[in-house]
């Protein structure tokens, strides 16, 4: 017999995570994503539609999983989003998150400050943070939590801690899995 292999989210969702939606929501969807990954870009509007659909029954968590060897801008984009979060708070972070996923063709360092400012952050601070690698450790910690949780590509989703093995491009299938987890 082969070893059992059931990927499970670790660590569990905690105060250090980017969270959107009520902390006591019956369903928590965790996304491990990469801002330069085209599949994550494709998933972004699907996730937003699911948030609309489930409303207060869904809490969304985003953790960084930049594949920096194949996506040269992914790490800095993630660090810039972390910088915005640190200086301007969660609402600005989610704005930045949305901006990055909707500008995947223009994620080079010269753009990150503009995006930070537009999201409600401070362009100068974020440019400096990215240059200094101020949030590299945070991004790296997210990445390693993903590795230990069984992330096997981007995006990888966990529904209430269990890796979603279904087809996320099918919004009905994805929604049904979320509904089942919250029932």
């Amino acid at each position, binding site marked *: 017999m*082969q*070893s059992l*292999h059931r*990927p499970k989210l670790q660590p569990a969702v905690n105060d250090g995570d980017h969270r959107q939606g009520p902390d006591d929501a019956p369903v928590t969807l965790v996304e491990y994503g*990469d801002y330069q*990954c*085209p*599949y994550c870009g494709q998933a972004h509007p699907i996730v937003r539609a699911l948030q609309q659909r489930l409303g207060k029954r869904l809490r969304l968590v985003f953790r960084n999983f930049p*594949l*920096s*060897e*194949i996506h040269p801008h992914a790490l800095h984009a993630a660090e810039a989003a972390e910088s915005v979060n640190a200086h301007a708070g969660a609402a600005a972070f989610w704005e930045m998150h949305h901006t990055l996923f909707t500008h995947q063709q223009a994620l080079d360092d010269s753009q990150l400050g503009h995006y930070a400012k537009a999201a409600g952050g401070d362009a100068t601070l974020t440019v400096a943070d990215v240059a200094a690698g101020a949030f590299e450790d945070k991004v790296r910690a997210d*990445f*390693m939590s993903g*590795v*230990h*949780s*069984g*992330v*096997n*590509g*981007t995006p990888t989703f966990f529904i209430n801690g269990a890796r979603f*093995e279904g087809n996320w491009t099918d919004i009905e299938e994805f929604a049904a899995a979320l509904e089942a987890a919250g029932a």
Partner: protein
Amino acid sequence: MALEAGTPAPAFTLPATPDQNVSLSDFRGHPLIIAFYPADWSPVCGDQMALYNEILPEFHRYHASLVGISVDGAWCHGAFAADRKLHFPLLADFEPKGAVARAYGVYREEDGTTERALFVVDGNGIIRWSYVSPVGVNPGADGILEALEAMTLASTSPTPAKG
């Protein structure tokens, strides 16, 4: 069926480049991760080899090396590794085709490729963990890291007293 934990890993010598071979015995003394995969050029983002490439520093923390093995030839591996910027060797189980995969019990007769199979071999050449993933499912790296952690713990904890 794939070889299981406790089995000596079958010896192999395979080309890593058109003029360089790699052998199992090269890795004696340290853990080795062997990742059999069906083919180069799988069309997904963040595929298995790209993922392991990102995680390589973590494997190195356990003094573990990584090799990928498929039935693709050395020139094909070279082009794939360069394209994906891989920092670990891909070995060509090309001639006789799939011989090493057969020895490990992970050759797929039906399509002439290998299973998506993982083996963690200890420094003495004994398989300590193995796993065969459904061929379309990237198994990730959590199982590999758990196996490496378990081996590290086993080698540092005192031998239980018998009596």
